[in-house]
């Protein structure tokens, strides 16, 4: 009887702490999650754009373009991400404001969201460049040649042939990058951006319910991954529509 009453009481305490409205901290966690997802989506999208340009630059660019792309991917992949984030965040915002002041404008407050997207997107772009470059190289050359032989312009060929053909080869790598993006948002806690990890630390620190809140955050990260896997699986099925499955091909 005594035991029976303790468990429900502990449970109801947890539920109060996790409830979405004060005094619960669930709302803060969910807000942090939304911020994390926004940054991850933005950074991943920006990484895709940089990666596409980088991959084309590395494969088909002039020697100068190739060198620049090479320097970019090498440096970004060599320096620890935390260092890059601190560097880009503080140095980057400082640089922009100096430029603004020098040209006679007011200093601006760069929103943490935008800064976070740009900083992480810059990092993602380097990895995406390598993923996409490898995928483009994996396209059967005959298909590219057929596109040229039928008079496709370079942009039409990219849109209609190259990008759709390389997608099956790029997807596993891109899916990895997406998951890394969702977790790298936690690094932005160091610059004080209130994403999921920082919100969790605050909730845990205030209530001293460390285990509860970090478990809850871990669960949210896990849910992102599980949900992403379902989506990626569908996209992959679609992208591989012209390819017999590995099992069939055996």
């Amino acid at each position, binding site marked *: 009887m005594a035991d029976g009453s303790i468990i429900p009481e502990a449970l109801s305490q947890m539920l109060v702490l996790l409830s979405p409205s004060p005094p619960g901290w669930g709302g803060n966690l969910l807000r942090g999650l939304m911020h994390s997802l926004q940054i991850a989506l933005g950074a991943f999208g920006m990484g895709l754009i940089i990666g596409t340009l980088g991959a084309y630059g590395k494969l088909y660019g002039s020697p100068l373009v190739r060198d620049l792309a090479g320097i970019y991917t090498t440096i970004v992949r060599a320096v620890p991400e935390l260092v890059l984030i601190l560097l880009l965040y503080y140095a980057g915002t400082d640089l922009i404001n100096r430029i603004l002041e020098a040209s006679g404008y007011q200093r601006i407050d760069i929103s943490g969201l935008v800064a976070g997207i740009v900083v992480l997107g810059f990092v993602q772009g380097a990895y995406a460049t390598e993923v996409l470059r490898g995928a483009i190289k994996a396209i*059967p050359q*005959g298909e590219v*040649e*057929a596109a040229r032989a*039928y008079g496709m*312009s370079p942009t039409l060929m990219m849109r*209609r042939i190259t990008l759709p*053909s390389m997608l099956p080869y790029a997807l596993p790598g891109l899916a990895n990058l997406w998951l890394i993006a969702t977790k790298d948002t936690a690094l932005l806690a160091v610059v004080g951006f209130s994403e999921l990890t920082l919100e969790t630390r605050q909730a845990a620190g205030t209530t001293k319910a460390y285990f509860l809140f970090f478990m809850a955050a871990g669960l949210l990260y896990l849910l992102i991954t599980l949900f992403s896997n379902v989506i990626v699986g569908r996209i992959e099925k679609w992208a591989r529509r*012209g390819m017999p499955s590995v099992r069939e091909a055996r």
Partner: protein
Amino acid sequence: MMGSDAVSINPLQPQTAEQAEAIHVWNLHKRFGALEVLKGVSLTARDGDVVALIGGSGSGKSTFLRCINFLENPTSGVIRINGEDIEMVSDGAGGQYPANRRQIERIRSRLGMVFQNFNLWQHMTLLQNVIEVPVHVLGMKRDAAIAIGEQLLERVGLSAKRDVYPAYLSGGQQQRGAIARALAIQPRVMLFDEPTSALDPELVGEVLKVIADLAKEGRTMLLVTHEMKFAREVASHVMYLHNGIVEEEGPPEELFGSPKSERLKQFIRTVS
């Protein structure tokens, strides 16, 4: 030898002075670094001509065909397609490249190329492959392109496969699909580069039949092939290439019936 005109013997297309030149190549040279692959090849194909290119492996047949639609940039020489001279500019390193990318794209979209390895786009169904160029390069309405595409697939015996992806088709079916893709652009000239060389022997016949039908209806074609019997039947003119030079050329019965050069005699013996 050089520049002698191909003469049509196709009964459906009686040779008249009016037959316009579809392709005119004069003194074409191509080198890859130190290796000179084409050493002055000339050819004229008029509407309705079927020119067969034969020769040993490495003699430059594919390179010649690929120069005609500028998949390779010829080192020197004149190429005129549809009566249009292709302007070239020097690259300053002994080579040249087309001055106007748009002109090349326009000309390519009137030359239907069929490759040894089919090269269908794997992420598109057969019908999507066939309508891709008409819709996205030539600007045809999608409905009209589909109507034509369906007719062409019917013609090559692939109506039932219109929504199938190339990887699920046999080599012979893929090549017939690739021929439908080439026909869909209403090409002035069709270019075939060993269209049956990658096929299992039992699938060669179905593809050759389609090509023979095209020849019968008066299509202008340039055909690289190792099928000597077939070349003899469908070609109006045969060119034998050896080491980048046209060693001998003429009507098929002459070339195969009474070859003059010792090399050609030997070549015919080894391949047949």
